[in-house]
């Protein structure tokens, strides 16, 4: 059974009268890799800083395995942080940086040396112990920062957008590396990012945050395939929103009118009534582009096509003006598969691949949301 390690309850934090976190509750399990995901200003970094003890909550409590940490200063919390810009001490060697935390614990010299060497070996930097941080590359500095934080064997490791300063390729390498470390160390990782791809590929669970409120908490698959609301749907991955209206309701299924097509879809969890407008969400890879002569599907024409290596991404302009993103894998039988601009097509999808969400009063769907990543 999953054991709760860190429990946040009713955390509230305001800066200059602006609410950054609004009575937030979250349980973090022992040994999991959990990611706080959201746009800048959503409160994810504040949440992390509250856990680390750099900020104090206006209300609410933080407990670690039942022990109240709310008023404990950072130096007495059994958790450590990997900072966004690494925060390596520039006047100390790599060795001294990693040894710093152990020296503060007044460990014997011999033990410090052994543990530092072990930590540096784990991030493959044992040959760089005598260097100064400014003599290392960004990726190496990142590894030192991780070694420095894990050498104290914290119960929990907090990572504040640790990969955001690295270039794309290095990021991918470090993502794999971090996953490996987390598995080997068995430490709980709390990872903050605004990059949804990173969040999906690394985490056991993802917390989607907006305006200091949890929008959704779930596995990457749940968040991507069954977004709890329009915000999550829009923020995580690209999505096509089709306006639909409930025509009739059956047991376990409803008939929905989408662009004049009558489609019978699985009945959603939320209550529905006849005539109710709702959103039909389809990921670009769920879209089927059909021949214009096909009977099912909505007519439109290709307005853009982008070759992406493994997929062909296209934008289709429907007759009513809606833009649709489609992402199709290349077919081995037809490697030359391509569209011309202006080519008439029809758009459809396989029943059951869609996801339904109710209209939300405060969440109007703007046209630009369709292309918003």
């Amino acid at each position, binding site marked *: 059974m999953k054991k709760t390690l860190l429990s946040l309850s009713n955390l509230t934090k305001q800066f200059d009268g602006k609410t950054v976190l609004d009575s937030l509750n979250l349980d973090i399990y022992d040994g999991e890799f959990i990611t706080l995901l959201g746009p800048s200003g959503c409160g994810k970094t504040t949440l992390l800083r509250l856990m680390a003890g750099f900020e104090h909550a206006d209300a609410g409590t933080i407990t670690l395995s039942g022990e109240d940490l709310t008023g404990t200063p950072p*130096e007495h919390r059994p958790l450590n942080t990997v900072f966004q810009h690494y925060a390596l001490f*520039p*006047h100390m060697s790599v060795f001294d940086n990693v040894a*710093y935390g152990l020296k503060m614990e007044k460990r014997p010299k011999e033990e410090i040396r052994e543990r530092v060497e072990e930590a540096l070996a784990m991030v493959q930097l044992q040959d760089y112990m005598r260097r100064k941080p400014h003599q290392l590359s960004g990726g190496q500095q990142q590894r030192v920062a991780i070694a420095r934080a894990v050498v104290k064997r914290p119960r929990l490791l907090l990572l504040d957008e640790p990969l955001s300063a690295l270039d794309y390729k290095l990021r991918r390498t470090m993502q794999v590396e971090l996953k490996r470390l987390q598995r080997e160390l068995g430490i709980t990782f709390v990872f903050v990012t605004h990059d949804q791809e990173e969040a999906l590929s690394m985490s056991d669970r993802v917390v989607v945050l907006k305006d200091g409120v949890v929008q959704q908490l779930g596995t990457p698959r749940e968040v991507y395939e069954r977004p709890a609301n329009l915000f999550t749907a829009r923020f995580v991955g690209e999505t096509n929103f089709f306006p639909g209206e409930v025509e009739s309701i059956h047991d376990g299924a409803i008939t929905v009118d989408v662009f004049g097509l009558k489609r019978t879809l699985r009945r959603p969890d939320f209550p529905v009534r006849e005539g109710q407008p709702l959103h039909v969400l389809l990921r670009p890879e769920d879209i089927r582009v059909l021949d214009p002569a096909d009977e099912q599907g909505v007519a439109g024409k290709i307005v853009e096509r982008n070759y992406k290596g493994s997929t062909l991404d296209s934008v289709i302009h429907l007759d009513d003006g809606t833009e649709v993103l489609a992402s199709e894998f290349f077919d081995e039988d037809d490697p030359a598969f391509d569209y011309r601009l202006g080519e008439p097509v029809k758009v459809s999808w396989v029943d059951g691949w869609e996801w339904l969400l109710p209209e939300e009063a405060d969440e109007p769907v703007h046209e630009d949301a369709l292309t918003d990543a």
Partner: protein
Amino acid sequence: MPSITRQPFRTAVLVLVWGWLLFLVLAPNLLVVGASVMTRDPGTFISLPLNLDAYRQLFDPLYLEVFLHSLYMAAMTTLVCLLIGYPFAWALSKLGKQRQLLLIFLLIVPFWTNSLVRTYALKMLLATNGLINSALMGLGWIDEPLQMLYTEGAVIIGLVYLLLPFMILPLYSVFDDLRQELLLASHDLGAGRFATFIHVIVPLTLPGVLAGVMLVLLPAMGLFFVPDILGGSRNLLVGNVIKNQFLDARDWPFGAAASIVLTVTMAILMLAHRLSKQRIGEEGAG
């Protein structure tokens, strides 16, 4: 072709700049070095033969005492400036950006005001029948005026008053650069306030301390008008000795040797500053 048209302008600029610096910086300094190893001459100021008499004269007990006393007052000045300036710069760097700029402006306003006039203003305060004594006697705290003017303390107060901004500005600049994240990282790794101060804040602000020391210690040995106005005849600086030797006693070799002592002190301080910056990787350490 651009490479042809650019030549005359470039040449003119380089000749002017080099000419000025060679004639008014390099030549005079070589002259001083030369003068320090020559012999005093009443007519032409200096003459052959070459010798080290001037340097030997520096160790004459009479002058050695003046030098050591000057060094002591300069060191005290520097220490007081550091003690006042360090917390000052720290507190300043914690304020909002807009307020910081205003306070920095207020700090340099006195610096833009004639330093003689400011030294004179101190004299008004410190004199035997000056404002401080009048105030203290008025309050009944003392019965007769304190002798503050023409003391060692007055010279140090004067030097601190004139040189404090030169200590604060480099310190402010290092505190301004000090990344908050590093302090958080230190706490995060288990260090309390005191340990963070000793292990992180002090080493990272050291270049600023050394720059401030350099900017205060050297002028504090050279500003001869401060003892002239506040110190009387017993509290002389190296600057007074140099001035007397050059302008009154006309002993150039000795005056030059004394000024070379200052230059060597400067070189040592500059080296220390450079090393401290290399330690934190701010200047190319290779």
